[in-house]
């Protein structure tokens, strides 16, 4: 019964928190640009608007299936990502499993965009996958370092280990260099400037979104909510001690995303190859130093 509640609650909570994260990102951007910013319910209005559109253009079965894979992949990921009070199925699939489940929606999106037969979409996916290769190299170094340091890949255990001695036993305190590299990779993962090569509005007509309209676009919007939530929660779980309860937990998640959205607005966009070079040089280098410290310890 608890499990059933977990299965339903975890994706729902993720969606609601994700909406709030999207709102925060937009408000922060508005403040930097000295605008008022959107009202509180704007993300909800956006989704309703997209789903309610009259024409819903589909580019074949794979296009539709992609939307299902996209939602299904993230719903699954949320169920394997433990949060305060809700462990879900985290005992049956560990951090490595979660990382690979998170690639299922990426793959779904890529297949869907590909079947739209729009070159801008394909270029967007080419760049998105290239970016993934760029930021995931430092990210796997961080993950391997963290797992070796904690001695487990079980996310519930990782949270418990960090909560034993308060902030002093948080991953960010025991392996600060690795945590810093993780933050850089996380920023790349969110696809924000200067790493937003695959959205690139004026360059490739927003890439993967080119042929998406109506509820297809709406699903991408929902995906963005899930993505912000998942990335923020995963970082919090790995380095910021998770949370004993939601009161301590949510501010950490928002802080992780806040750092990213606050920084992003002052940057332009890198070229694709520069993203790779930067990611493989700085975050990877820093992560390797952090890994070396973990191994020496």
């Amino acid at each position, binding site marked *: 019964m608890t499990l059933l509640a977990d299965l339903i609650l975890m994706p729902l909570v993720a969606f609601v928190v994700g909406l709030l994260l999207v709102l925060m990102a937009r408000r922060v951007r508005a403040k930097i640009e000295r605008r008022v910013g959107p009202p509180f319910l704007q993300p909800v209005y956006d989704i309703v608007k997209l*789903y*309610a*559109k009259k*024409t*819903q*253009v*589909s*580019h*074949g079965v794979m296009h539709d299936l992609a*939307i*299902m*894979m996209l*939602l*299904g*992949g993230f*719903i*699954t990921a949320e169920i*394997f990502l433990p949060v305060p009070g809700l462990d879900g*199925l985290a*005992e*049956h*699939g*560990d951090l*490595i*499993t979660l990382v*690979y*489940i998170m*690639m*299922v929606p990426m*793959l779904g999106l*890529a*297949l869907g965009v*590909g*079947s739209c*037969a729009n070159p*801008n979409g394909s270029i967007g*996916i*080419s*760049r998105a*996958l*290239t970016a993934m*290769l760029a930021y995931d*190299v430092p990210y*796997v170094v961080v*993950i*391997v370092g963290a797992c*070796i340091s904690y*001695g*487990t*890949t*079980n996310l519930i255990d990782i949270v418990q280990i960090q909560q034993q001695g308060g902030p002093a036993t948080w991953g960010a305190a025991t392996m600060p260099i690795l945590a810093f590299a993780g933050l850089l990779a996380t920023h790349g993962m969110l696809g924000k400037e200067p790493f937003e090569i695959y959205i690139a509005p004026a360059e490739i007509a927003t890439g993967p979104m080119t*042929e998406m309209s*109506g*509820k297809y676009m709406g*699903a991408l919007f929902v995906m963005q909510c899930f993505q912000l939530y998942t990335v923020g929660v995963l970082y919090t779980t790995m380095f910021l001690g998770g949370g004993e309860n939601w009161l301590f937990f949510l501010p950490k998640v928002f802080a992780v995303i806040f750092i990213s959205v606050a920084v992003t607005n002052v940057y332009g966009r890198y070229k*694709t*190859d520069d993203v*790779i070079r930067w990611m*493989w040089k700085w975050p990877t280098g820093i992560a390797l130093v952090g890994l070396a410290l*973990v191994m020496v310890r």
Partner: protein
Amino acid sequence: MPFALPFDMTSLDLLMAIAAAATVLLYLFGTARLGGYLATLLHGAALAVTVAMGLDLAAGAGAIPSSLRLTVLGQQLAWTLDGLGWFFLLLTTGAAFFSSWYMAGEWGRVQQRARIQHGTLALNVLTMVLLLSAGDLLGLFIGWEFVSWAAFAMMIQAGGPATQAAYRYMLYALAGAMALFAAILVVHGAAGGFGFDQMRAALPDMSTGMLWTLFALFAGGFGVKMALVPTHLWQAPAYSYTPGASSAFLNAVSARMGLFALILSLVKLIGFDTLAGLRIPMTGIESTDILAWVAAITMVVPTYIALMQTDARMLLTWHGIGQGGYMLLGILVATPLGVAGGLLHVFNYATYQMALILAVFAVIHRTGTADLDELGGLITRMPLTYVALLMGIIGLAGLPPMNGFVSKWMIYKALIVTQQPLLSIAAFVGTLGTILSVYKLIHNIFLGQLRVEHREIREAPWSMTLPMLVLAGIGFVTGFAPGLALSIVDQAQAAMGVALLPHHLGGVVLATGSLNMLWVVGVLVGAIGVGALIFYVLGNRRFETHQYDNYAGGHFLSADIRYHFSHEFYPGLARVIGPWYRGWVVRMEHGLGVLAEVSGDLWHGVFRAAYTPLYVLIVAVLGLFWAGGAGGFGS
């Protein structure tokens, strides 16, 4: 045996008889109208016998003997099949069954020399049976030679670039055979015989230098077949340009014979404990560390070479080389988890790689090309082939819900648990490259713009789509319930003398984080169902637009404009790693070519210059070296 056999035949005898009969019959009648179905029937029978053997082994039969006997140099050679050999045999007969099924219908009929293809396939199975059931070192050597030549016969049938590559392969294989022969001589010198037990008994008395020699000779000799770096250059062209079903068979199991022989020689005979004791002085680097790093490089470098390919077959075979690295690396971790992961990957890889290769050849069958720059949009024309390829690439990329994820998960996990960070990172980085590469494969063939000349193409016939869909289905089922495949792996692991990995139907329970694929896949499928519900229930009805009713950048796109983004699919990445590729890989290939040429010339010169004192000198020096080695330098 669940059924009685005449003339005191064992099941291994029966299998050998079937394989031998198949070789002769198919060579004679392979071109006949029903020749393909005869082949499927014979290979199906061989598969059934193999499965029956597995039941015997699972019931505690130990090893299955054969009545085949041969006396060489006063030594009696015998053939017996244990769990390890059986595991690889199951893959062999299974792969042969699916290959012949694929060839049985339309595909076989349009081949010019179907009987050669059927005949060489059956010959390969026969030689592999001999290799896998070798009961001593000499039997192993004989089997190894047969397997090499049988594979060679299969590769040269198409002519062209495959033949070129096959010659290169033969060069490496002969060098490998020489290494193996030298190793056997070393063992014979120390143990006084060719028997596996004799070798094991002689091991404690061998000097460190001798053990290092054996390690290097076995690893080098058998590594060639696995195309371990730096002997990797032959495999991709040789396997790619071999026709369809033969190519799938070569990809799925041929290179695995190298892995079998490596496991047999290094793990079963020499043993992990002895290997761990072999260290480079002053460094603490163990012999297995060296091999693990070779495996890691094999995992990463060929994967990124695959990413640069423009031929679908080459892309897949380069990945095949990389995947071999995962298997070897998993086994070298030497924990029950790592070994099970490595062996499970052998099984999983065979299923999805065969499905992939067969799907690509189905595309070639219909369109006449495997050039990734000249295809596109075939999803609407060949949907079943698309499904097989999609499931295959998810397996190859190692993502849930397919089986490739489970074995790779076990390998990552084993590396992390044994605290080998750099090797773990190499394993992860190899997988990342694979994801990019397989997306390019499916995108360039099946997604994007359909070419005008492909508008009327039909789906491949059922005789071709069914085998690949069944293979993809096996990949899904063993991903959902990996316990099924792990039970098969147990046979091999027990025969290797490695402790078994406790598992259940859905995966493994470990103190450091478990995996239960029943939950992972169940939830994933359920959640995709929820996604479907959201998609269909919420929002307005969808309206399907035709592909040619599309526009980009303000222009309507029509069929006569080629706009499929396929050429140089990852330009940004190519700009970064392209120079490394050209600089490092191409230079290495050139270097190896020059090395082979120079050493060839050198030996040619030596043989031609009938200069007896030189021979005497070389033999004397080698003899002294030999005596020094056997006498125990470094011990």
